[in-house]
């Protein structure tokens, strides 16, 4: 506990105390702002490189470093200096403001996602509900942005995005329910701690499958990328964005990819637990990148679903599988099969 400075000599120790405090370090460096920006920029490069390899191309090459790893920086500089085109009759405040809100919302869940036993910004006892509550704000933001563009393609993309995200949110919440039942807690740190001996992917594999598919749909990844279907809708709900606006949206989309991958890691893949030769955050980031890889790969492989199939899969298949797995979890817990692993 440091008191507010009263004399000029106290100011420097006060500032040092703030900078070296756990809150400041976790908020600004890791797992906060700096780490998120670096990983998200690396993810954009990683996706381009991975997809290029799948399709027997080379991908980014010339922008410095091995394999053109500085490409995201080059892209960022390019996009910042491009003109921001605002459509005629677009709603200007919303058109410029909503992308910022999207990026903020995509980064917000990292406040409660634990990267290690002590590498968490805020240890909230309703962490998982917080993540879902923040996640439920995305569809409305996207719809508002699509409406603010005042253009046909973004609006169609926004409506599709809303349909899709609302339809897949429900199986997602229910599949997370069985994880909450297994851990007996809504706290993400406790959920990871409960997986020290047995990762939840094993007792609730069906949940994992449902959650993963719902994650792909929430992220609008192929085969669920109807909201930005290039042949029909140009670029979906962000067709009209350009320059810095596009950059912020791009950032938000990849931030959300990282956020959902780390959520899968927390809920099903044992979070930071792994052999002790690597520190906990390294294990966490490695697992998250593996999940992100599996989310990215279908983009180079699969075609797009039809709208009716998408809605049908979400409401009639995933929901039922998720509900069934809740009952399986009840049976597993009440018969004490899992007691050997401390559940």
């Amino acid at each position: 506990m440091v008191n507010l400075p009263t004399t000029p000599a106290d100011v420097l120790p006060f500032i040092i105390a703030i900078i070296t405090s756990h809150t400041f370090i976790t908020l600004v460096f890791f797992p906060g702002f700096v780490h998120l920006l670096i990983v998200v920029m690396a993810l954009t490069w990683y996706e381009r490189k991975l997809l290029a390899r799948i399709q027997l191309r080379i991908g980014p090459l010339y922008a410095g470093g091995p394999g053109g790893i500085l490409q995201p920086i080059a892209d960022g500089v390019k996009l910042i200096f491009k003109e921001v085109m605002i459509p005629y009759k677009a709603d200007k405040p919303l058109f410029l403001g909503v992308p910022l809100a999207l990026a903020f919302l995509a980064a917000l869940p990292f406040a409660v996602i634990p990267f290690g036993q002590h590498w968490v910004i805020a240890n909230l006892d309703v962490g998982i509900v917080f993540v879902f509550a923040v996640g439920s704000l995305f569809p409305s933001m996207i719809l508002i942005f699509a409406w603010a563009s005042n253009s046909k393609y973004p609006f169609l993309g926004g409506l599709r995005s809303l349909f899709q995200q609302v339809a897949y949110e429900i199986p997602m919440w229910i599949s997370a329910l069985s994880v909450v039942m297994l851990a007996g807690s809504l706290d993400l740190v406790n959920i990871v701690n409960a997986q020290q001996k047995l990762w939840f992917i094993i007792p609730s594999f069906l949940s994992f499958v449902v959650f993963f598919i719902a994650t792909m749909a929430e992220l609008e990844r192929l085969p669920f990328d109807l909201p930005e279907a290039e042949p029909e809708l140009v670029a979906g709900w962000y067709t009209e964005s350009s320059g810095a606006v596009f950059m912020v949206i791009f950032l938000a989309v990849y931030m959300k990819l990282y956020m959902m991958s780390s959520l899968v890691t927390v809920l099903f893949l044992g979070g930071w637990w792994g052999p002790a030769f690597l520190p906990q955050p390294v294990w966490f980031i490695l697992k998250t990148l593996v999940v992100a890889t599996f989310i990215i790969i279908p983009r180079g492989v699969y075609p797009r679903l039809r709208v009716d199939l998408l809605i049908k899969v979400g409401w009639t298949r995933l929901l039922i599988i998720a509900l069934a797995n809740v009952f399986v979890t009840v049976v597993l817990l009440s018969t004490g099969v899992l007691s050997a692993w401390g559940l």
Partner: protein
Amino acid sequence: MVDLTIPPDLTFVILTTITLLAAIMALQAKELIYGAISLAISFIGIAGFFVSLDAPYLAMLQIAVYVGAVVVLILFTIMLVRREEADKVETPEGGEGAAGLWIAGLLAVSIAGVAALAGPNLPTAPPPANLPISQLGPVLAGSYAVPLIILALLLSAALLGALVLAKVDR
């Protein structure tokens, strides 16, 4: 550690200002979509009140249900209805009064019935403050089951009322 927490009085003043201003905006906004956004901000302000009252779970559900679902429905309706149509608000004529009386009567009878059946089991003391979330389920479904049922009846009455109001005679 540096204590940078905001004093509770200031939190209350800030939250009240945000919530009330957003609520006024929601009613006064010329563009319906700005009204919906203001409504969402007002709901988030209410969630902030729940957080400051040590009910974070309720706050999260407030955001998920009201901002995540109700406001989305409102936005959806605004966007699908063309602007000229949205300005004209028609009220149905006649019949609501009688239907309202019927629903109110049914509601009163049901609540009285539930309360009479529950009788002595009705809770008398308020639940303990700072109830852990793991205890929320047992308390709600146990000693507070009767208030929960009464709330459910009230909500179904509201649903019936909405159906009556929305019904168009063909």
